[in-house]
C-alpha cells in the first residue's frame, strides 16, 4: 500500500519493505515517505530491531543439544511397511487424522498395493544403492568447494533484488555476511562499486578460510567478527572481495549496514545481487561502521 502524503506507513508494509517484498513502485513510495517522516522512520527502526532480536529468541527456543535428524535409512524403513493401518497419505500438506501419532509406526506392517515406489524401495538393490549414495554423500562433504557450488549454483542468474540505503541514511559502508555453523562450503564474492554492490556465489579455491581484498581504492578492510565477516570501507569505492568459508552451510544471512537483506539456504542464494547504496548518498559517510 502506497502511503498518501498525510498517511503513515503501517507495520505490515514496513515488514514487507524489510523483507524486500515490495514492488518497485511501492518501495519507492514507501522510501519517499520515510525520508520525510520521522515517526515512520522510528517505526521502521522498531520493527527492524524486533526482527533482529527474533534471531536470538529463535536460537533460545531451540532445545539444547544436537537434535536427532532422520536418516534416509530410517525413512526408507518407515516406507517399507512400518505404518499401522491408516488412511492413505495425503497428497499435500493436509493434516493427519487427530487422535493418533501421525508417525506411529507400531502395529502390523502395511502392504501398500499398487505403490510402485514402495516396492522399488524394498528391493535389496535399492537399499544397496541407498548405502552407496550415503557413502558418496559423506565423501562429497570433503570435495572442493568448486564442485559443490557448480552442482547447486548455475546460471548467470541475476536476482531481481535491489536493496537501497534508506533515504536519509548514509551509504551502507559495511557489509557483513554471517554463516551459521554445521554448514556446507560456499564462497561469496563481493564486488563493491561506485554505483552499487554485487554479491555473487563463486567457487572457492580450497578448504582454508580465505578473506582477502582483491582490489579497490584502498582502505577496505575485512574483519572477522564472532558472528561472521564484515567488510569495512572508507566510503563508496570500488573493491572486490573474496570470502571463502570452509564450513558446511545450512543457512546464510546477509546484512547490509546492520539490516538483514536476505536469509536462506545456500542453494537458494541468488547468483548475483545488486545492492544499490543510493545515488544521493554522500561520499565517505559509510566509513568504518
Amino acid at each position: 500500500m502506497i502511503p498518501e502524503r498525510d498517511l503513515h506507513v503501517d507495520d505490515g508494509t514496513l515488514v514487507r519493505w524489510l523483507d524486500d517484498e515490495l514492488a518497485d513502485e511501492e518501495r519507492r513510495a514507501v522510501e519517499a515517505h520515510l525520508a520525510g517522516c520521522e515517526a515512520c522512520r522510528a517505526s521502521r527502526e522498531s520493527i527492524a530491531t524486533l526482527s533482529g532480536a527474533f534471531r536470538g529468541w529463535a536460537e533460545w527456543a531451540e532445545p539444547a543439544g544436537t537434535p536427532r535428524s532422520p536418516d534416509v535409512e530410517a525413512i526408507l524403513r518407515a516406507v517399507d511397511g512400518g505404518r499401522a493401518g491408516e488412511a492413505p497419505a495425503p497428497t499435500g500438506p493436509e493434516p493427519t487424522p487427530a487422535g493418533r501419532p501421525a508417525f506411529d509406526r507400531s502395529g502390523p506392517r502395511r502392504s501398500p498395493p499398487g505403490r510402485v515406489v514402495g516396492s522399488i524401495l524394498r528391493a535389496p538393490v535399492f537399499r544397496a544403492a541407498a548405502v552407496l549414495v550415503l557413502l558418496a554423500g559423506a565423501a562429497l562433504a570433503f570435495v572442493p568447494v568448486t564442485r559443490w557450488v557448480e552442482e547447486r549454483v548455475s546460471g548467470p542468474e541475476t536476482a531481481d533484488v535491489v536493496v537501497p540505503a534508506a533515504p536519509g541514511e548514509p551509504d551502507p559502508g559495511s557489509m557483513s555476511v554471517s554463516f551459521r555453523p554445521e554448514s556446507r562450503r560456499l564462497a561469496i564474492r563481493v564486488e563493491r562499486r561506485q554505483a552499487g554492490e554485487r554479491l555473487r556465489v563463486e567457487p572457492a579455491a580450497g578448504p582454508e578460510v580465505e578473506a582477502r581484498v582483491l582490489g579497490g581504492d584502498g582502505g577496505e578492510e575485512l574483519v572477522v567478527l564472532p558472528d561472521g565477516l564484515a567488510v569495512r570501507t572508507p566510503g563508496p569505492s570500488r573493491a572486490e572481495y573474496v570470502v571463502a568459508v570452509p564450513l558446511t552451510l545450512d543457512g546464510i544471512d546477509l546484512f547490509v549496514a546492520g539490516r538483514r537483506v536476505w536469509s536462506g539456504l545456500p542453494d537458494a542464494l541468488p547468483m548475483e545481487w545488486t545492492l544499490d547504496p543510493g545515488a544521493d548518498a554522500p561520499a565517505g559517510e559509510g566509513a568504518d561502521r
Partner: protein
Amino acid sequence: MEVEALHDAHHVPLVRYLSRFCGDPDLAADAAQEAFVRYVERPPGDDSNLRAWLFTVATHVVRDFTRARSRRSDLLEARPDHAPIGEPEADPEEALLESERRRAVRAALDELDEKERMMLLMREEGFRHKEIAAAVGTTTGSVGTMIARALKKLARSLPAEMGGSS
C-alpha cells in the same frame, strides 16, 4: 527429486525449524521423518517448491500430534532431561540464567498461536511471504502485518534485558 537429495538438502534446517516450533527435539525429528516418508509415498503434484511443502507437512504433523495427545507437556513432566533447557554449565549461576532464558522464550513462543509461530520461524528460515502465506492459509499481502503483530506480541512477553518490552 530423489528422497536422498531432498533429505540431504533440507533435513537439518527442517529439524531446526521444528525444534524451535514445538520445543521438543524428539517430536521434531519424528515429524521431519514423517514428512520425508510422505514425500516418498505420495509426492506433491507440483514439485516446484519442495522445501515449502516439506516444512508445511512437517508442521502439520507436529500440530496434529500435539493437539491429539498434548505430548509436549507430557514429555516435559515425564522426561525432564528433554526439556528445553541448557547444557550443564560449569558456572551454576550461568546455567540457571541460560535455563531461565530458554524457558522465557519457550513460554513466549507458546503464547503465540500456531500460525504466528509458524510465520515467524518460516521467515527466519528465509521463506518468502508468498510461501509463508500458502503454508498458513492467508494472503501474501497480509503476511507482513501478521508478522509485525506477532513480533510485538512476542516482545511484550519477554523482559527488556532479553530485548523484549515487558
